[in-house]
């Protein structure tokens, strides 16, 4: 391999390293997280806003009560709309995938009867 080939090889490796570095390091604002994997605050509030129509409750009276990360891009947000429970699924871009009344199976706080 001549000198130009070696130089090209090093440049390629350096470029690959830079790309890999960019891909693996989160932005400064994302350099902290909780092991619980809760939804970002803005996504929780977007779900609360989106629940106003199906619940018939003003969005100022709808509160997120729990959230969890479903997969790499989707979050589940549980909501309390003036006493009625709703569940929202939202992706990291802020697109609401689904929203509706919480089912019994989706309400883990409900008591479970053994046997």
């Amino acid at each position, binding site marked *: 391999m001549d000198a130009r080939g070696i130089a090209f090889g090093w440049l390629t490796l350096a470029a690959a390293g830079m790309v890999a570095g960019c891909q*693996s*390091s*989160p932005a*400064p*604002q*994302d*350099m*902290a*997280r*909780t*092991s*619980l*994997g*809760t*939804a*970002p*605050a*803005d*996504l*929780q*509030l*977007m779900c609360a*806003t989106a629940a106003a129509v199906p619940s018939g409750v003003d*969005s*100022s009276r709808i*509160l*997120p*009560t*729990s*959230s*969890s*990360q479903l997969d790499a891009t989707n979050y589940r947000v*549980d909501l*309390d709309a003036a006493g009625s429970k709703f569940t929202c699924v939202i992706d990291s871009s*802020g697109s609401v995938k689904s929203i509706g009344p919480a089912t019994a199976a989706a309400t*883990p*706080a409900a008591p479970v009867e053994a046997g």
Partner: protein
Amino acid sequence: MNAVREKRSTSRLGRLGWLVAAGIALAPLMALAQTQIYDSKTGKWVNYDKKKARQLYARNKQLPEAFQRQIVPFRTAEAPGTIIIDGNQHFLYLVQPGGQAIRYGIGVGREGFGWAGMVRVGRKAENPTWTPPPEMVARDPHAAKWAAGMPGGRPDNPLGPRAMYLFVGDSDTIYRIHGTIEPWTIGLDVSSGCIRLNNEDVIDLYDRVDVGAKVIVLMQGAALYKGV
């Protein structure tokens, strides 16, 4: 003002019927929550606990980047000037125009808030007085010295240089946003239930927030249902 004593009084909070109360069973599970920060040197996420926080603060003389005050994208229908408190992530957001927010790192309660709700800044105070609760007075000679209240402005005042008092209507809740004399505790679950910022940040927030500002408190321990 008797901030700490009020924090211990749960009966007042119980009267705030509009708050969404957390299940009693949630409190023991709070221990499952673990703050993690990204270590740029190793490229790995590492647990952020009291020991780690003290080490980093002693070495760097500042908080990890994630907990430093910064402008972040924030998509919301809430009006600029609204405060949003995310105790899980240890962030306080002050909504700005243009889909942005100023994000501050916070320290929150050891056992979580136990509630979520919408409150407002009912009062602000510069150099607030700190009055230790009776149980602290009983066991701590230093606290006993200040049983009648430590004047604001002292470098050892636990409330720091500013406090914002959270109200429901005209009623004072048991919660405040205030400064701290332990800046390394930002990002941790350490307080008696209030929201603490480092002193530079609480002064910055104080100057930006008006009395009457809306405050949305998201449920702490909000992912405890995960996997159930």
